[in-house]
């Protein structure tokens, strides 16, 4: 037999001015199961809560209805009060008679009638409430960082620093990412390798960090605190544990005509290769598409020269399975493909390069050993034109709708570096707007103009035409001078828009995290939770969330680490008990619920049932993981048999409310 207590709050005059609270208490007192019905000045006050607690104890209440303000205000207050008086907190229901009644209706009679109906609905619902207990779910004290660029390295180092194990999964043979390819960094002009490579080494030497290079995440199961991840370690045909990185094999390898990815194809490497001198791990990798031994079975030079016997042509991909408490996504970015911008002649003319290619051309470890030469004829360029916003700020058909953010600054950097090193070179920068918000950023850009005399021209390049004499005709408009220009250039540098890495989209599906239309990961709140995804336990680091420069990336990497550490510190997490559950006896195992679950909380198990005739029958039934379920209820409607129901908002509870309102 239910013993329900009803408590009607005056909220000073907020409720009492338009709702006859005494009449509400009186009317609800006659509802079935209600044993006590009281009103009080301020139910949420200390003494109001005392009133409720005492009634729970004295009247041995099995359910409580508070007619007061919105449950969004004080549901937790009253739940806690009930719990402290020994009543399960989920046996409390709130009837919202302030925001949704007294504040919107002016006539007392009307408002009182409505308040009574809302109260009756709450009483009807509380009749069907069941005690719910929050589950505790343990936290695996290990983090996974997907992506080994500067964002991932920073995150991993910070997490390891806090005393937790971290794995970095990097799809390339080495960590380092885009920053390893960059020559100098703005606005300080210090060398990128000089600040990055110590961090790479630190990561490799930290005993809490495991680096899975040349690996990709293949499958993610589980939920916050307890993810199970399958990592595919791609065969590199070299035993990582044996290889010393001496590089003899790469020297002796007879196949030397392989486009070098690290230098963006501007020069060649051998079929067995180490991406660059400071690679971490410094281990050779065989490219099976070019290796003569793998293609024809004839060669085997690397195997012969390797003194430690690390070469293994028969190596297979291996799958590592590991549990993690938190996952940080740091998949980074790439410059967009410029094929469709044929007005810039990128595909026709080798002297039209992207900014990232220019980084390599200027880098001491790059194809020209640091001397800036035209790729076509290795001559010294005297006129260089930079084009901004190539593919950025376009409508959807023409490119990316967003500003890529970093191009204004790195172009100023390039322009400045060239003018510094080669004062006889004229540098033109065509811009639409120069966007330099950031510490010392605008000063930096002004230095390029004022100190280095870089020609900034407001306007866009319309056409780039390679000419027969090796020069490049750049046709552009100078909007401020109101004239059309032709510049005879030696090189053209395109500031290509950046986009999220292509592996991010399938990864988002695996992680059940959201992406925006540009494939950037969506943060849980754009302002207040910028490094968390909406999926609990998944954090975002670096440019996978949006275009960022290095300091911002590092800051976000550390912020994501802090959030992950906050999670890993806990031994267990408390779950919301208002989650879905499936009645196995009714479940058909049809998979409808699984299809609509945004969290992957539903799995299927083969369960044995004892039949009335003492035989057993094995049926496929749904099983909800209460730690993953967030309680939206999508599955309850997808389920045709009604096996799936939601704690706290069950079918019968909602229908009881409907009945009470419509009666």
């Amino acid at each position, binding site marked *: 037999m239910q013993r329900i207590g009803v408590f009607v709050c005056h909220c000073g005059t907020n409720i009492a001015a338009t709702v006859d609270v005494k009449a509400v208490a009186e009317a609800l007192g006659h509802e079935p199961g209600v044993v006590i019905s009281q009103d009080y000045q301020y139910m949420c006050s200390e003494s109001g809560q005392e009133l409720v607690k005492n009634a729970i104890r004295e009247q041995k209440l099995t359910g409580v209805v508070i007619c007061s303000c919105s449950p969004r205000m004080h549901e937790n207050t009253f739940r806690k009060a009930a719990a402290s008086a020994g009543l399960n907190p989920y046996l409390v229901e709130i009837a919202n008679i302030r925001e949704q009644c007294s504040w919107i209706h002016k006539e007392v009679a009307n408002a009182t009638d409505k308040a009574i109906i809302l109260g009756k609905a709450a009483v009807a619902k509380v009749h069907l409430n069941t005690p719910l207990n929050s589950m505790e779910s343990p936290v695996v004290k290990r983090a996974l960082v997907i992506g080994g660029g500067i964002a991932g390295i920073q995150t991993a180092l910070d997490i390891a620093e806090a005393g937790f194990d971290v794995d970095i999964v990097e799809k390339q043979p080495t960590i380092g990412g885009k920053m390893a390819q960059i020559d100098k960094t703005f606005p300080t002009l210090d060398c990128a390798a000089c600040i990055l490579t110590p961090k790479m080494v630190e990561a490799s030497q930290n005993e809490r960090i495991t680096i899975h290079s040349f690996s990709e995440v293949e499958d993610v199961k589980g939920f916050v605190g307890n993810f199970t991840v399958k990592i595919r370690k791609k065969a590199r045909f070299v035993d990582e544990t044996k290889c010393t990185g001496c590089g003899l094999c790469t020297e002796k390898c007879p196949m030397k005509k392989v486009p070098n990815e690290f230098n963006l194809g501007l020069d060649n490497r051998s079929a067995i290769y180490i991406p660059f001198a400071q690679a971490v791990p410094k281990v050779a990798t065989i490219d099976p598409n070019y290796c003569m031994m793998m293609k024809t079975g004839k060669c085997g030079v690397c195997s012969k020269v390797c003194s430690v016997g690390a070469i293994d042509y028969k190596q297979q991909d291996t799958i590592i399975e590991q549990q993690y408490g938190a996952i940080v996504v740091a998949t980074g970015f790439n410059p967009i493909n410029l094929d469709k911008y044929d007005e810039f002649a990128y595909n026709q003319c080798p002297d039209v390069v992207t900014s990232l290619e220019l980084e390599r051309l200027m880098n001491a470890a790059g194809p020209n050993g640091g001397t800036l030469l035209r790729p076509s004829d290795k001559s010294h360029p005297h006129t260089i034109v930079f084009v901004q916003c190539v593919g950025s700020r376009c409508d959807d058909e023409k490119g990316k709708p967003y500003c890529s953010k970093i191009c204004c600054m790195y172009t100023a950097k390039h322009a400045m570096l060239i003018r510094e090193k080669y004062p006889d070179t004229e540098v033109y920068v065509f811009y639409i707007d120069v966007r330099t918000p950031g510490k010392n950023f605008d000063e930096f850009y002004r230095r390029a103009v004022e100190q280095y005399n870089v020609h900034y021209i407001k306007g866009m390049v319309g056409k780039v035409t390679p000419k027969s004499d090796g020069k490049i005709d750049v046709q552009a408009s100078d909007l401020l001078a109101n004239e059309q220009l032709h510049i005879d250039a030696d090189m053209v540098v395109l500031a290509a828009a950046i986009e999220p890495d292509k592996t991010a989209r399938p990864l988002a599906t695996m992680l059940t995290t959201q992406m925006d239309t540009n494939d950037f990961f969506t943060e849980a709140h754009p302002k207040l939770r910028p490094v968390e995804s909406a999926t609990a336990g998944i954090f975002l680091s670096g440019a996978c969330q949006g275009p960022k420069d290095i300091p911002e990336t590092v800051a976000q990497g550390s912020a994501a680490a802090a959030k992950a550490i906050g999670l890993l510190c806990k031994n267990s997490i408390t779950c919301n008990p208002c989650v879905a559950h499936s009645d196995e*006896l*009714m*479940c*058909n*195992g*049809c*998979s*409808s619920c699984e*299809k*609509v679950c945004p969290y992957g909380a539903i799995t*299927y198990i083969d369960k044995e049932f004892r039949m009335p005739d003492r035989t057993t*029958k094995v*049926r*496929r039934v749904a099983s909800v993981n209460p730690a993953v379920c967030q309680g939206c209820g999508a599955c309850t409607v*997808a389920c*045709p*048999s*009604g*096996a799936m129901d939601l704690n706290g908002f069950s*079918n*019968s509870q909602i*229908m009881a409310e409907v009945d009470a309102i419509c009666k």
Partner: protein
Amino acid sequence: MQEAMIKRAKELLADGSVDRVIGWKRGEFAYDMTPAVFTSAEELDSEFIFDDFTSANVSKYLVKETAKEGKILAFLKPCDTYSFNQLIKEHRIDRDKVYVIGIPGGPKLDIEKIKAKGITGILSVKNEDYTLKIETLYGEETMPFSEAILDKCASCKSKKHVVYDELIGEDGDVLDSNRFDMVEKLENMTAQERFDFWRDQLSKCIRCNACRNVCPACTCENCVFDNPKSGIDNKAPADSFEENMFHIIRAFHVAGRCTDCGECSRVCPQHIPLHLLNRKFIKDINELYGEYQAGADTTSRAPLNTYTKDDCEPSIVHERGVE
């Protein structure tokens, strides 16, 4: 055809490929063909029938049959293969336990249409060159075959088998059918006319549950209408609301899963055109969310279990048809 089927069934039974065969046998009357399971060559020889009245869809029976030990041979007409596939997709049938032989489909005959001609005491019906020779207690009657075919066959959507292990006879194609004509006609009526139409029809419902029990999409372990906890269980069509609700909920539960096999209307003893409710959902899904044929494959997402970000709003109901 019947001989070829029996011959093949016997072979498969004999070599141990299958343990049972599901097909049809005669019920009380000559035109009353009912699904049946056969376990021996003798049974097949004496009872197995495949003729113009074997219209019942045997797919649903495989839910129970594949829960048993051993493998079963199922003869599936094109329309049955869609139901079969849909049940595979919903994990209700264990595909490994069924050997599917695709057999030609209808058109099958509707005994009610023959009876409607005033022909009674029917002993047998024979199709001779598309003229039906009907032997009755009172002598022989004839009528054109075309006037006696089942409504569901008259608006056949496909002669193609979407799944089979082997075929007896030729495979056909997906057809351009006129199956949505009546739905469209109703859509163009006024709301009052539609209401009157459905009151006329649904008020005939005696809640015998035949539509639910025959429906291959209705394979729930425990139907919501039988479950006292569901809040909508009710055995009798107590009033007009109950009549409406039963059919709305049933149609909604099979929306996106119904293959339009037409069995619901075929078995309705009150001749309520229940398939129109399902077809309304199918037509809406096709028009609003893109063509979708339940059971055409086993992997695609059911339209109600997926979405696109630019789906139409429910207010589209106000823009279509007549109020």
